[in-house]
């Protein structure tokens, strides 16, 4: 069971209160009409899936219902860092 720190509630809670929403920092193309099919497909579907450090978007679904980012090791499940949307992670994969 993960214990996740919600940066909005400023508390540690059990993972059951949260939902993982996939990869963080996905930027929507600024001019979607100018995208090629490949660019649009990659924005929609292609995701980082590392064995190791991963930046993820989570939501405190059964709590404050706010979104935030988590840097987590997908192999050991260790949460390295929690930070708000818009902030930059201090820990990134080599």
């Amino acid at each position, binding site marked *: *069971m*993960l214990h996740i720190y919600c940066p909005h509630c400023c508390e540690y809670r059990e*993972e*059951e209160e949260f*939902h*993982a929403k*996939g990869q963080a920092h996905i930027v929507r193309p600024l001019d979607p009409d100018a995208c090629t*099919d*490949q660019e649009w*497909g*990659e924005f*929609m*579907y*292609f*995701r*980082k*899936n*590392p*064995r190791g450090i*991963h930046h*993820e978007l989570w939501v405190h679904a059964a709590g404050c219902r706010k979104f935030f980012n988590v840097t*987590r090791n*997908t*192999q*050991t*499940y260790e949460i390295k860092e929690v930070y708000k949307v818009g902030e930059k992670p201090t820990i990134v994969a080599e």
Partner: protein
Amino acid sequence: MQHYSGFGLLKHSLSHHENWQRIWRNPTPKKKYDVIIVGGGGHGLATAYYLAKQFGVTNVAVIEKGYLGGGNTARNTTIVRSNYLWDEAAHLYEHSMKLWEGLSQDLNYNVMFSQRGCLNLGHTLQDMRDIERRVNANRLNGIDGEVLDAQQVKEIVPILDCSSDRRYPVMGASWQPRAGVARHDAVAWGFARGADAHGVDLIQQTEVVDFIIEDGTVIGVKTDRYGEIRADRVGCVVAGNSSVLAAKAGFELPLESHPLQALVSEPIKPILDTVVMSNHVHGYASQSDKGDLVIGAGIDGYTGYGQRGSYGTIEHTLQAIVEMFPIFSRVRMNRQWGGIVDTCPDACPIVSETPVKNLFFNCGWGTGGFKATPGSGNVFAASLAKGEMHELAKPFSMFRYHNGALVDEHGAAGVAH
């Protein structure tokens, strides 16, 4: 290869079963192969078997970082069915089902394929409408299926709670009589033995650490134990690790890897002689020939490569089982484990060419790979032999995420992903 038969059993009994042939060799790899298959699980071994037997390509190596059939092949709930909604998926899984039906004879190895039938329960009016649609689609594709009402379901599985005062009452089910289960380890071992007999080198305890790529064409792999091994074509069948290998080849796949758990109970007397699945309460169960209940459910919500899964998922799984089978509420669970499933955005596999020439990937089977083992191996072998994709594999190209021709099978098969 020594042929297995009743007479052979009798003959070997005279020497106290001490002179059985080893069922596969343990060769040192050659410098060059026609085809290298990365990953010695069920799909990889099936690919090697059909390459050698059906397509005459015998200069083949299977390179496995652990031991044969030690990944997801050993970590699933062994259910085999082909009741998929979309034509593309239905054709692929039905191709596999037809191979299952003759597999033990073909391999001369008992894979314990048991066509005990599979029920997909409906608990709401919408479930029942979806079931009717799917069964009709199956029948139009020549796949057996029936829509059953609650009374008929009760007759097939008397221990199922079909009373109407449940929170999620059983309103009916789809029923595929030809579906069933197979012995997962025997499937890997049977394919390995068959491939070995046709001259395929099975290289265990050897990890592929990189690809050798020249001018956008793959010409071999680098291994941790034997250095470089060359090949004309390379097929990767590495389930949960596909993204990691694709990154080494320089491209991304639309995959996310999640742990998927299964549990087995203590062995009990025969009580459940079919497979029961429910999309709505989300659990599925069958009873193995040994007597243990084999139980599975959904994937963990977050990505991960840990082969164990989260506690919360166990609780949800057993809630679903007890909802369907109150009689199991005191059965103890013996073991729990996880496999790493590589899930696609449209819940359908990728059997595909890649941006690297002569490099092929077979991945993204998500939660439903076991049932496809022979079919997946067969179409992938055909593709590797010819260098172009088999007709049944064409809709499952990784480039469908660019052109939008998705095969969106979420829930259409009667179980959520």
